[in-house]
């Protein structure tokens, strides 16, 4: 595909072209992305033409709905290069996916002397579930070592702090405590600084100590190509609404053999073979992990979102985002007193690329004040702890402003953002 025509791209997103919103600059894409028309239409079309409950039906409409739902499993499988569609479980989002692994797979095998490793860079969704099962079982949760002391060169050849997992230190730790570590959970890309972890090496290291690992891909799947076979991880998850799809739906990838060992997490219709008054025989994964009527329209909408991404091409998306990122970064650097907590790519493969997420603070200015004044200028950014309080503590701040871009954003929007930012700083510094 040739370079993206940004006008064509933007015209595919009703939110970006509707008159009501034409003055808004949406820089909150790490929170949730806008939806292409094809996704919105897939949902309307389902409710208009094919709406029916699935799996247990002998009628035509039910069969069509079932097929569309199950086809999406294949679409997802191809999207993340899983081995088979049976490795794909539909959840209500990344949060449920992680809770599912924590409760149905990890918790049953934990005992008091065990350790779970997560990182202080994690979104709460990939931290609290591990804390809680540790608490319930008496196991310990420890933080993965972070390189934060090392200075590295960023994409503009400047020195900045490297917040990636320190695999050397981790290896040392595992050499002495590896037998006690029962699970590792880590992010693929950070929602705070867009930094990319070397999840492939991390997985290799975990597996060399026979430790299963989950990668939280909530911030990755819309930005880089995900290949779970190449990564080698046991579990991978993401949310539909962050990859241009609907809310209320997400994906858990799990290796078949491991999914088979899951206790169902929720119980209800569609997951049983035989029910007596006091006991039940269940179906196999992934069906036994999707109790009750699922978010059928949501799953189908997510399928449309993935098709949209594939049509545009992740390569193209990356190219566009890289260009926006470099532009914004170079301008942002010039703002006096700014601290930018931007991550980098620990893979070194494509040294310039990390996702276009910019978290920052300006000396002497509160992030909340900045975000409010930006919002008054119709610039939609996020502020606060970004559901990542432990990361904030690593950064030594209570919160920050986050401008998170997507490939449909433009340089003109960046310019407007910078103008408003400067105005706001001026107002606040008095």
């Amino acid at each position: 595909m040739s370079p993206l025509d940004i006008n064509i791209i933007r015209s595919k997103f009703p939110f970006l072209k509707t008159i009501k919103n034409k003055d808004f600059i949406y820089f909150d894409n790490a929170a949730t992305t806008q939806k292409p028309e094809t996704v919105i239409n897939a949902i309307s079309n389902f409710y208009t033409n094919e709406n029916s409950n699935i799996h247990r039906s002998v009628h035509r409409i039910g069969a069509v709905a079932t097929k569309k739902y199950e086809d999406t499993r294949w679409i997802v499988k191809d999207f993340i290069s899983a081995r088979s569609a049976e490795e794909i479980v539909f959840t209500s989002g990344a949060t449920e996916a992680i809770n599912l692994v924590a409760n149905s797979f990890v918790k049953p095998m934990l005992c008091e002397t065990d350790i779970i490793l997560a990182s202080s860079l994690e979104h709460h969704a990939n931290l609290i579930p591990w804390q809680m099962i540790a608490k319930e079982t008496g196991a310990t949760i420890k933080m993965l070592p972070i390189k934060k002391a090392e200075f590295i060169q960023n994409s503009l050849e400047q020195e900045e702090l490297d917040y990636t997992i320190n695999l050397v230190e981790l290896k040392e730790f595992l050499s002495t405590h590896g037998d006690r570590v029962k699970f590792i959970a880590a992010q693929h890309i950070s929602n705070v600084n867009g930094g990319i972890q070397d999840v492939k090496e991390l997985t290799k290291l975990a597996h060399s100590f026979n430790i299963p690992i989950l990668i939280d891909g909530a911030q990755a799947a819309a930005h880089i190509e995900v290949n779970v076979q190449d990564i080698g991880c046991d579990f991978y998850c993401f949310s539909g609404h962050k990859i241009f799809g609907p809310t209320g739906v997400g994906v858990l990838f799990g290796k078949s053999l491991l999914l088979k060992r899951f206790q169902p997490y929720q119980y209800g219709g569609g997951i049983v073979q035989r029910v007596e008054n006091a006991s039940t025989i269940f179906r196999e994964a992934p069906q036994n992990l999707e109790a009750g009527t699922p978010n059928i329209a949501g799953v189908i909408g997510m399928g449309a979102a993935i098709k949209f991404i594939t049509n545009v091409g992740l390569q193209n998306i990356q190219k566009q985002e890289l260009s926006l990122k470099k532009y914004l970064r170079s301008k942002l650097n010039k703002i006096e007193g700014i601290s930018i907590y931007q991550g980098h790519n620990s893979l070194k493969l494509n040294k310039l690329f990390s996702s276009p997420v910019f978290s920052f603070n300006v000396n002497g200015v509160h992030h909340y004040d900045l975000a409010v004044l930006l919002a008054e200028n119709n610039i939609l950014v996020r502020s606060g702890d970004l559901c990542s309080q432990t990361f904030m503590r690593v950064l030594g701040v209570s919160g920050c402003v986050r401008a998170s871009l997507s490939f449909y954003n433009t340089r003109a929007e960046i310019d407007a953002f910078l103008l408003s930012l400067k105005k706001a700083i001026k107002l606040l510094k008095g």
Partner: protein
Amino acid sequence: MNSQANKIIDSFSFFHSWEEKYEYLIELGREMSPLNPKFKNDNYLIPGCQSKVWLYCEKKNKKLYFYGDSDALITKGIVAIIIQLYSGLSKKEILLEDEDVFEIIGLRDHLSMTRANGLNLMITKIKQFANN
């Protein structure tokens, strides 16, 4: 394509409406040689179909012979066709057989629209027998 398949296709070619096809399917089920009641137990049940399907396999002279039953008539007709198709073949022949007779006789669309019938589960089971 084996001669049994041709025979089935020939018979169905007389019928054009889905009603006639179902009628004939039901007839095939009714005429199928019955499964010895001692095999009508959970060991021979194919799980996952909405109606009960039993399938029993016997080996004679390097060939497999199938016997089956169902509590539903339409399903029983499907069982009858599958048995007619695969009974008397060698393991290898069974594994090689991949012609979709149901497609040709014009019932595939109907039957896969009503997935709960377990057509695919039955064929999978037959191939499993041949794989052991």
